[in-house]
């Protein structure tokens, strides 16, 4: 009981390390890891394939990384608290269908424009709220809650799907992908905006700091009587909202609504967060780091294509990468009596 916790305090105390000193003076050093990895990978691929560092290729890497980066930033809000959100794909599927069916499209006569867009975003928010309430109010583990929501989302999208693929005709949505500034689509700039704002929220607002605090030691917060339920609700809601936004953006890229639009994006989002330093146990990392992780994964993917690896091989390698990343990140946390679920 008390002995156990006092032991924890004693074993965790250590002298201020050199690294610790640096960390407090130069906060940007937390990005060092992912940036170094990025550089190493890029240079490596360039050396092997010779065609990595072309403007066109770099642009396509950034374009491909935009939505995964938003997803990684979104899931960071939840992961930093120590929870997880597996429902991203379901949310994206539903919002894709909602936006595709409400704005001007080739299947029905709707033309709700902005309202359709907002409805889709609201749906994303609703998914997030649902997750939040089940986890924070009904005290159900987030793993199971979001696993259930994942499939509910896929189901709703499947139910909404009409007899044929809804082609999106509304320029409001299509322009998100078509409009290009400096030859990069609007989606890229939106992604940048989201990442920056997310990082600002995480570093400069009470909401953000409390998210880190919950990830750091939720037990202490509860014991000292601070109210944290609202933080959890907000974090899950933000994640759902951003996932909803990604569903819309992906539909813009495809110019159709698709009930499977997000398939296969959950895992890269989690991997990106972990690669960027947002550990699954919580308390660390941030939106920018996770986005960098997404960029790393995209560079890896692109590089593997450049050197001739097939699509499924890449799938396999990404799976392996995440396991290695989590293992490497958690190695120093190994303890004799540690319980790992």
């Amino acid at each position: 009981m008390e002995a156990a916790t006092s032991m924890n305090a004693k074993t965790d105390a250590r002298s201020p390390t050199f690294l610790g000193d640096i960390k407090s003076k130069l906060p940007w050093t937390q990005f060092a890891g992912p940036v170094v990895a990025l550089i190493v990978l890029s240079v490596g691929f360039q050396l092997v394939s010779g065609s990595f560092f072309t403007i066109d290729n770099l642009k396509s890497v950034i374009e491909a990384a935009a939505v995964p980066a938003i997803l990684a930033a979104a899931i960071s809000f939840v992961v930093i608290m120590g929870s997880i959100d597996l429902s991203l794909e379901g949310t994206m599927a539903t919002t894709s269908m909602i936006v595709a069916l409400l704005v001007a499209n080739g299947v029905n006569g709707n033309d709700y424009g902005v309202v359709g867009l907002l409805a889709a975003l609201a749906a994303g928010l609703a998914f997030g709220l649902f997750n939040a309430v089940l986890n924070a109010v009904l005290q159900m583990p987030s793993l199971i809650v979001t696993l259930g929501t994942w499939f509910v989302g896929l189901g709703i999208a499947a139910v909404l799907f009409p007899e044929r693929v809804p082609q999106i005709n509304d320029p409001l949505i299509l322009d998100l992908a078509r409009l290009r500034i400096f030859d990069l689509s609007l989606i890229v700039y939106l992604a940048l905006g989201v990442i920056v704002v997310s990082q600002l929220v995480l570093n400069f607002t009470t909401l953000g700091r409390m998210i880190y605090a919950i990830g750091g030691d939720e037990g202490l917060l509860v014991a000292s009587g601070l109210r944290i339920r609202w933080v959890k609700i907000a974090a899950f809601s933000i994640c759902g909202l951003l996932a909803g936004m990604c569903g819309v953006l992906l539909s813009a890229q495809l110019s159709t609504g698709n009930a499977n639009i997000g398939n296969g994006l959950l895992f890269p989002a989690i991997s990106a967060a972990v690669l960027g330093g947002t550990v699954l146990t919580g308390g660390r990392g941030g939106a920018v780091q996770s986005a960098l992780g997404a960029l790393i994964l995209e560079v890896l993917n692109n590089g593997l294509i450049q050197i001739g690896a097939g699509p499924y091989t890449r799938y396999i390698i990404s799976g392996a990468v995440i396991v290695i990343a989590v293992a490497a990140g958690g190695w120093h946390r190994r303890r004799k009596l540690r319980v790992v679920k």
Partner: protein
Amino acid sequence: MTGSLVLKGVRKTYGNVVALEGIDLEIPAGQVLGLIGQNGSGKSTLLKILAGLTVPDEGQIVLDGQQVVLASAAAASRYGIGMVHQEQSLIPNLTVAENIFLDKPHPAKRTGIYRWAALNKAAQEQLHKISVELPTRALVEDLRFAERQQVELAKVLAIEELVDRPPIILFDEPTSVLTPEEIKLLFKQINRLRGNATIVFVSHRLEEVLEISDRIVVMTDGRKVAERDAGSVDRNELYELMVGRQRVTELRSDRQPAAPAFTPVLKLEKVSSGQHFRNVDFELRRGEILGVAGVLGSGAEEVCRAVFGAERIDAGKIMLDGKAVAPRNPRTAVRQGIGYLPADRRAEGMLPSRSLFENAVLTFGLDYGWRSLVLRRGKERPVALEWMKRLKVKMHTPFAPISSLSGGNQQKTVLAKWLMAKRLKVLLLDHPSRGLDPGARDDLFAVIRQQASNGLSIVFVGDTISELLELSDRIVVMRDGEITAHFDLAAGAMPKEEEVVAAMV
């Protein structure tokens, strides 16, 4: 408002264990009150109540003449009360500045947006109050323990700005892990606060409490037994008071421990483990009961856990029957014949929702099976049942979940699990009688004595001195991670309780 605190008839029970029995206490403003007592004296509970971490079952807390209810730590801080904890109570991955202002409002974060420059400056000011310079942007987990304690102190003092009365600061065993220089610094800070704040200082180190306090309160068995001026106190009187009613009233049963063999069963040579204990040397002979005395944090529990492989060992040798062993984890320890009855039975001793049988056969059931491969319930259950009978476990049916039993019977079942071993050499008992009523305790001790007579060697970390004197053949006393005294009872010389206490504090 002066910040004077009065407790009237405060009572707290945990289940059927009375932690505090009607405490009446007056803590005058601006003074340092030292609180001293053994394990189980109630001083930690009292402090927790003052800090708002738990609420009393009966009684009143009166602050400046007004009755208050301290429902949570946040509530307590609104009244100007804050605690510097023995254990970690800062959020490790947040900065110093954030932690100082985490549980209180501040203009620099009023609108929900953190203005870091202002917050850091404010944090610096709080630290300057105690003449400390720390990088406020540093993460708390990168600080040394002493520095973290300073942050906690600053966090508590920051309450000052919120209330217009002098803050009430509670110190819970603050010196356990500090170096002598750091302790001096802490005392300097407390001295500076004297007069401007009310301080309650809890420590098991009598010397320190005497040095820093204006008044001392001695607690024993959940009661306040004495109140003295620190200046005019007699140490021996204090030792006597702390022992209280825990005198050995019954004669020790005449037990002949087995004659010392040539090699001791268990021998520790200069064993150290991080912050927990250093240079521990002791021997355990076959059939002997070695009692270990020590307050929480003295290292007694950790020594047992280290021998069992549940705690890291940094230096030293452990020898079992003359051969060096290195128990890396509980499994290897058990294979070598070492068993351990944990202090925290709920988390480490038993599987609450499983049946009594399942709990009892968990570790050694397979030894009664076929070739250590296939379980034979028909063979293991009678043995388990036999042990439960000998330990006098009161149960409806052995198929009932263990959580349905009283604490004493749960403990007996957990002990049965270890006694089912066919080849146990050493059994380490960590506060085995905690939470047990006297009847259950006597049953337990009877079986322990019997097992020792049969050749089992036992290390027994006791809750009270009387227990240790009653059961042990030899006693080793630990304080702050080191062995401070050694008593050999079998040689006919029973130490006085006060002597043992003196070595503990």
